[in-house]
């Protein structure tokens, strides 16, 4: 494999003003954008741009398991397929899946399974396909962010969204959200993802050298970054349903129905609904979780706001 332009890294990754290669402060996130419902066929889908990472995630399921023997009679299984496109990196990647992609698929599975009610889907599989179109460091974190959004878009009951972001160490300083070069030339990289309702880590890896004190700072940066991403994830979901509401309103106006209150329960009395037992149990658990974490879940958003104010 001969390439004319090799990948080179600058010697210093942080300048004398404490700014990073792309002008960011040490604890600053890269530009982040996300959207749901981007693929027409998938049951749920999401697109995430995190720095120059561009990632699509699509969800199918719950559906039949292939091959059959992988099915479990007591609960559903979650399968994640993380794949990098051949052209997403500097040197063309062979299209066949490698060991790295399999490992990352597994850790994303482990990061998202704790947000699903898999016991509701015995003998079935929920499958998430993640395709990295452009890679720019931290793809596993951005992929987890995208996969979690795709699950939400598929309408599956979730305990929480998961937001992923890495922290690291370059030139002896702790930083939030390593870019490609910082990732490759830095001294440490900590990819992480957080389940946002209770702020527990669901993905955590480490590669490099750090003191426990440095690790403490790094982890606090991760939490700050994840809260910012979480705010954009929820905004993306609201945006889609706001759009649907506007379209339905316009449609209703056209056919002359103007007095529809979208908050009305269209399904009638919930208690009289004929529901399979396990689904009913599952819904009760969602309700319980909601009431339990209601004061908690409102907290992160508030703190994101205060962070924004501080940065102003």
């Amino acid at each position, binding site marked *: *494999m*001969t*390439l*004319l*332009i090799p990948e080179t890294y600058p010697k210093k990754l942080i300048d004398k003003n404490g700014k990073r290669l792309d002008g960011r402060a040490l604890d600053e996130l890269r530009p982040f954008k996300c959207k749901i419902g981007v*693929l*027409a*066929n*998938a*049951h749920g*889908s999401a697109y995430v741009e995190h720095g*120059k990472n*561009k990632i*699509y*995630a*699509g*969800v*199918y399921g719950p*559906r039949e398991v*292939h091959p059959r023997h992988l099915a479990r009679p007591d609960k559903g299984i979650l399968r994640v*397929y993380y*794949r990098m*496109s*051949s*052209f*997403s*990196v*500097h040197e*063309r990647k062979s*299209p*066949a899946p490698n060991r790295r992609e399999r490992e990352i698929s597994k850790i994303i599975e482990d990061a998202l399974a704790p947000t699903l009610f898999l016991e509701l889907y015995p003998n079935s599989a929920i*499958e998430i*396909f993640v*395709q990295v*179109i*452009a*890679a*720019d460091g931290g793809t596993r974190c951005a992929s987890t962010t995208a996969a979690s959004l795709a699950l939400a878009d598929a309408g599956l009951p979730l305990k929480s969204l998961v937001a992923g972001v890495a922290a690291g160490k370059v030139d002896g300083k702790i930083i939030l959200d390593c870019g490609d070069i910082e990732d490759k030339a830095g001294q440490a990289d900590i990819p992480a993802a957080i389940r946002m309702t209770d702020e527990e880590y669901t993905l955590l890896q480490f590669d490099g050298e750090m003191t426990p004190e440095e690790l403490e700072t790094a982890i606090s940066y991760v939490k700050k970054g994840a809260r910012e991403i979480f705010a954009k994830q929820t905004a993306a979901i609201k945006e889609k349903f706001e759009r649907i509401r506007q379209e339905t309103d316009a449609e209703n106006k056209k056919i002359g129905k103007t007095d529809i209150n979208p908050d009305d329960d269209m399904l009638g009395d919930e208690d009289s609904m004929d529901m399979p037992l396990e689904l009913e149990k599952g819904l009760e658990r969602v309700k319980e979780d909601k009431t339990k974490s209601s004061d908690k879940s409102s907290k992160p958003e508030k703190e994101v706001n205060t962070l924004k104010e501080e940065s102003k």
Partner: protein
Amino acid sequence: MDTPQVISTVQKKYILDLLKKGKRIDGRQFLQFRDVKINADIIPKAEGSAEAYLGESFIITGIKYEIGAPFPDSPDEGVATCMTEFIPFASPMFESGPPDIEAVEVARVVDRGIRHGDCIQYKELCIVPGEHVYILFVDMYVMNYAGNLIDTGTISAMTALLSTKLPKAKMEDGKVVWDGKYMTIPINQIPLSITFGKIEDYIFIDPILDEELVMDGKLSFASNEKGQIVSMQKSGEATWSEEDVVKCSKIAVQKLNELRNTLNLRQYTPKL
């Protein structure tokens, strides 16, 4: 919302009844393409890239290169290879794993379109005859499958090739090195493709998924700006009469000229 995997005989009859009335299931005319949407240069680390939508069919193509040895039978020519990957989220019918025969067919047909008909000037991609040439990888990823991947793939691949910026090579002390400048891929003719679907005696272009699942077969043509046919592919069990082939080839050239003018793919060529 759910993509059909199996179409019932009722659905097939419905599509056929519509065709008999001169109508199609999505309201298009028999010889009408779906809307095309293109974005070029979307991937920073690819030398060239494009996403193309034909209706809801959606393919992203990236171009990568390496410097390697030419084929022994064409020592003074560069090489281009096409690959297609069906990403499983593109359709509930796709499974994870190596490309199946359908994916290989799409890649091969697009490949033939760009290989012949004065498209890429392979001789200009040669650095030292017999030793060093540019090898181009045209990798197509199917993001959403809504019928007619061959035509979607050709539009996506041609846009990506036209948007490509390659580092220019020179020889220094017997080694190939970068001379600090960039070049575009020399492309003389832009081939595009058109696919005819056939159900019983009805022939139409650009089949959508529902039609593709019930049709008897298809016939794809690629043609260049000179109005020449540069590749053909018949697939499926339908058989085609001599008159149909001749008639379709004429429609192909005319329709593709129209499409080429509308798309104006040269606008995606980068300024160096």
